[in-house]
């Protein structure tokens, strides 16, 4: 009698095998339709790919592992958010002025996470190789998770503080938020390879430390445990995103020599676009954190000048050099944050966060960090405004500013070699004048003018009558900005009143 043999137990697949099945086994060449019709965006940017299988993802993440890791991170994050809310964590921040950094983040950055989700979902569809498609798909889900968890984390503050009630709507309309919005729309409306160079490489790899570290360390330094925990939860995703950024660049450069000049031009463009966007971060670091981490100049030296040097040395073997105008960014590091904060002080009547003049103690810190510029150029400016405030004549700029057509920031930046003279650049296209804040922004326009002549410049849109009306109050209502609560100085704001009441109650309770 023959006993039935039990079927041989199937060996579990190794991680490497599972990843190979996911990224190679699930791809195929189409037969009903030619491949170039199925992937219509693969060629038009001029990037030549000969072997999509040369794409290697060092993380080799499969879907089952992905869900497991992400679910674990979510559980931890939501436990902290819950306990933060139950323990009234907002009472433990250093000062209510700190919340204004969160307002900037929620209206300026979180919607970009959502745009990134859409961008990666889009390009993930359009790559011919299954490896990059999978990597983009996972990043698309990551970005959606980041947008969602940021909104959940910060929604606690919305119960108490002004300016956090309609971030998504504000992102699409408020004048200074057209800066981050147009940055991302520029990337999303480019081809798939340029999108990855812009977001995965130039932003995530080269510049992300200058966005994330300041906000998350700022949160840690200022007692905001909820936002810190979000930062940790996103950190391992960011590591994966940075790797994707470097991989895609090397992949393009190794596939064909003809790709090198195209990639270099994109690096030049997106370095400058990203750097201009970070102007908002510079002001946050130097002016908005009650307890500061480091100065913008120090951060720039550490995260771009030093780290960037190493990176671009590494890429030089492919014929890639440092991004054009990196030296201009370094020249600007001692003035950037001061010029930007002054701008928001000029127009605080139209911002969805509060402004203030730095205290004497804060000015001492700024003098120490910026010995060559602060006392000479910016301290006198703040002292002059302070005098005007004391006389009951707080300075407001009553007129709308000229904007740069490319980065959409008011034309506030000064000549690279002269911080006392505003930098003006202009170009003519089809008989019409266009103005730029810098050579970097002008070059970007001049390469693709048809794209940027469509810029939705908030100032011109107000004049054209597309923003709710001609009066400032009409425009602010169209922004969904609550006049007298969200805008103006911190001193005298409802935020301050509430915070002061809590502090008074706390000292009364302590007795």
């Amino acid at each position, binding site marked *: 009698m023959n006993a039935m043999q039990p079927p041989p137990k199937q060996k579990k697949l190794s991680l490497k095998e599972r990843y190979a099945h996911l990224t190679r086994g699930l791809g195929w060449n189409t037969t009903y339709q030619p491949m170039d019709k199925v992937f219509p965006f693969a060629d038009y940017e001029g990037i030549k790919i000969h072997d999509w299988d040369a794409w290697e993802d060092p993380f080799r993440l499969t879907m089952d592992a992905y869900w497991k890791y992400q679910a674990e991170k979510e559980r931890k994050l939501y436990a902290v958010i819950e306990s933060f809310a139950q323990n009234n964590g907002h009472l433990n921040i250093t000062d209510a002025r700190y919340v204004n950094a969160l307002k900037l983040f929620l209206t300026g950055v979180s919607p970009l996470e959502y745009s990134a989700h859409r961008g990666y979902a889009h390009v993930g569809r359009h790559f011919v190789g299954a490896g990059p498609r999978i990597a983009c798909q996972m990043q698309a889900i990551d970005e959606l998770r980041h947008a969602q968890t940021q909104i959940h984390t910060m929604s606690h503050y919305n119960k108490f503080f002004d300016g956090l009630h309609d971030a998504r709507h504000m992102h699409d309309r408020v004048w200074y938020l057209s800066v981050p919005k147009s940055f991302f729309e520029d990337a999303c409306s480019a081809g798939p390879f340029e999108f990855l160079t812009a977001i995965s490489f130039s932003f995530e790899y080269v510049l992300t430390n200058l966005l994330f570290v300041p906000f998350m360390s700022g949160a840690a330094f200022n007692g905001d445990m909820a936002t810190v925990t979000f930062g940790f939860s996103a950190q391992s995703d960011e590591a994966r995103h940075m790797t994707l950024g470097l991989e895609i660049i090397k992949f393009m450069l190794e596939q064909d020599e003809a790709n090198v000049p195209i990639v270099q031009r994109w690096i030049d463009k997106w370095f400058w676009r990203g750097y201009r966007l970070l102007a908002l971060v510079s002001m946050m670091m130097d002016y908005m954190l009650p307890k500061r981490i480091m100065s913008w100049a120090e951060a720039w030296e550490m995260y771009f000048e030093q780290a960037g040097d190493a990176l671009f040395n590494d890429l030089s073997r492919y014929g890639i050099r440092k991004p054009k105008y990196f030296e201009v960014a370094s020249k600007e590091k001692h003035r950037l944050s001061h010029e930007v904060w002054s701008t928001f002080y000029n127009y605080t009547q139209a911002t969805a966060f509060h402004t203030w003049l730095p205290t004497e103690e804060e000015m001492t810190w700024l003098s120490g960090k910026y010995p060559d510029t602060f006392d000479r150029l910016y301290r006198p*400016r703040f*002292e*002059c405004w302070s005098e005007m405030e004391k006389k009951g004549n707080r300075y407001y700029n009553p007129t709308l500013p*000229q904007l740069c057509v490319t980065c959409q920031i*008011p034309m506030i930046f000064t000549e690279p070699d002269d911080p*006392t003279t505003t930098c003006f650049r202009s170009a003519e296209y089809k008989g019409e004048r266009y103005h730029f804040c810098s050579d970097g922004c002008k070059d970007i326009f001049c390469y693709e003018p*048809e794209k940027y002549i469509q810029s939705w410049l908030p100032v*011109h849109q107000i004049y054209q009558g597309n923003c709710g009306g001609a009066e400032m109050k009409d425009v602010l209502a169209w922004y969904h900005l609550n006049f007298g609560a969200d805008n103006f100085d911190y001193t005298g704001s409802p935020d301050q009143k509430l915070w002061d009441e809590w502090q008074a109650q706390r000292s009364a309770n302590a007795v």
Partner: protein
Amino acid sequence: MTVTAIGPYEFKSRDHIDNFHGNQVVYWHWEEHLMFCAALALMLPRDMPFGDVLNNILPGCYGMHPQFEQIEWSKVVWMLDGRPFKPDLSASLVANGVGHKSLLRFWTPGLHGLSGAVI
């Protein structure tokens, strides 16, 4: 084609003069006075006399600056769109060659901002 695109790609400028209801945008910048963080964008009738802008519009924009009322307009040094320029105060903007999205930079002799810091 001036853009990398998947097909024909041509658009009208979003800031074409036709979109400003008969007016034009002109940028004004008072040099060495960076209390005003950037050049100002003013929407003005094309036939407005140049002098009317100086007398009726600019005071509302710059008037809070203590040096503004000391300006002697006859001595001001002008640049229009990158070229030296002498305005005819009684002629219109257009007759002065000031067009849509023109940039006027002006220097005020003797007035270099407050506290020696171009404020």
